């Protein structure tokens, strides 16, 4: 998986952001029994459409929480799923806040239906914090953990 996102043609973005279209998509989701959908647009915005809960759009795609946290680097979700801080068969998390982590260490999980995907680190450092509530739905590329890189 690459971190950067390549954008396709731009006209779709404006179409999706049209309130009438958004409303229509929300209705389709509701009919299909889907709670929400995330769409990445040309501008790097992540549009999250939640069925039956109004329409929201935020800049989560680029405005990572980590920006405000000095030098901390994000550990991002490799896929959309529900965040599991602890493996369901274990009593303790793979890494705790304040402890050292090494590259490619699994530090959390995402539940994707019956499957589980790992959230891992890119580089060595100290696990600085977790920015997602247990069980909440995170999108592809969302920051889940913050890691203070090793000096």
């Amino acid at each position, binding site marked *: *998986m690459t971190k950067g996102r390549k954008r396709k043609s731009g006209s779709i973005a404006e179409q999706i952001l049209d309130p009438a279209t958004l409303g229509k998509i929300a209705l389709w989701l509701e009919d299909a029994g889907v709670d929400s959908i995330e769409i990445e647009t040309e501008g790097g915005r992540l549009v999250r459409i939640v069925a039956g809960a109004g329409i929201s759009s935020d800049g989560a795609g680029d405005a990572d929480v980590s920006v405000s946290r000095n030098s901390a680097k994000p550990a991002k979700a490799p*896929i959309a799923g529900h965040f599991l801080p602890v493996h369901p*068969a274990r009593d303790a998390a793979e890494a705790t806040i304040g402890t050292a982590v090494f590259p490619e260490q699994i530090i959390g999980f995402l539940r994707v239906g*019956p499957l*589980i*995907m*790992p959230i891992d680190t890119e580089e060595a450092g100290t696990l600085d914090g977790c920015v997602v509530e247990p069980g909440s739905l995170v999108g592809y590329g969302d920051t889940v953990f913050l890691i203070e890189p090793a000096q």
Partner: protein
Amino acid sequence: MIEILQTGPLNTVQDLGRFGFRNAGVTSSGAMDWLALTIGNLLVGNGEGEAALEVQTFPFRLRFERGTTVAITGADCDARLDGRRLPPWWSVPVSTGQVLELDAPRRSARAYLTFAGGIDIEPVMGSRSTSLRGGFGGLDGRFLAANDRLGIGSAYACAVPPGGFGVMPPEAALAEHFPASQDGTLLVRAIPAGEYALFGAEAERFWTQTWKISSQSDRTGYRLAGEPIRLASPVELRSHGVVPGVVQMPPSGEPIVQMSDANTAGGYPKMAGVIDIDLWRLGQARIGSRIQFVQSSVTEALAAERAVQAYLEDIRRTVPMLAHALAAMSRR
């Protein structure tokens, strides 16, 4: 190829079992936890009945002599691949020379190692399961020893992400379909069997007390320890067919539950039959742990079976979808 570097006794090659030969006195054998074996195969892209290693004594170490994908299911043995910790119920790509280590689990009894392409040994009577008592099947009918080398079947490159991926453990995913106790006693559902009525009022204590799995327990059967339940007057039965799950009452009054290597025939009175869908949980129960029988019904047993089948179907459907999604994202 894989090479066994370290193993305790009684670790064997097992698949889903050898069926159709009980009339000739051939036990079915097969994994004590068939669900863990099935899930392991799904996680590496295999057919669900491919053979795996059933590991029940530890520590266990093996080295991969070529790249493949391995899944670790069943008991959480704090698996490490070249020292890197792996979560339980996990599938991961491995490369030549890497060493996988398993330690004794703190909960549950048996771990399963499945390999993409399966274990390449000749089936005997339609199965690769080891029959230890018969001395055939699996690896020359015996348990694994250090320096053993086993061939791994060839498989397509399976789209497993480098960090691997896993599955919701059945205990978590199916919690609402399996009874649980407050104190960790394993609740095992059973249905009264042929000679149940002979025990009269004594039979009540079969359900009300907890039984300890004695040290005289193995893949053939579990001998349970507790307050004996005896017949008012002894009966002699003709030998009759026995299958895994049958709970017999020998003259000692302490039950025997027949497991995967169950005898094909026996003559003890049958108190109950453990429902099929609870056998994998019993297969993970440890010597020294306590179990309690819970009276069940065919309706309840079938409902639990449907829930497990739906869970497996969900995994079957989602594994290829996850692979496609990851492949699509890696092209971005």
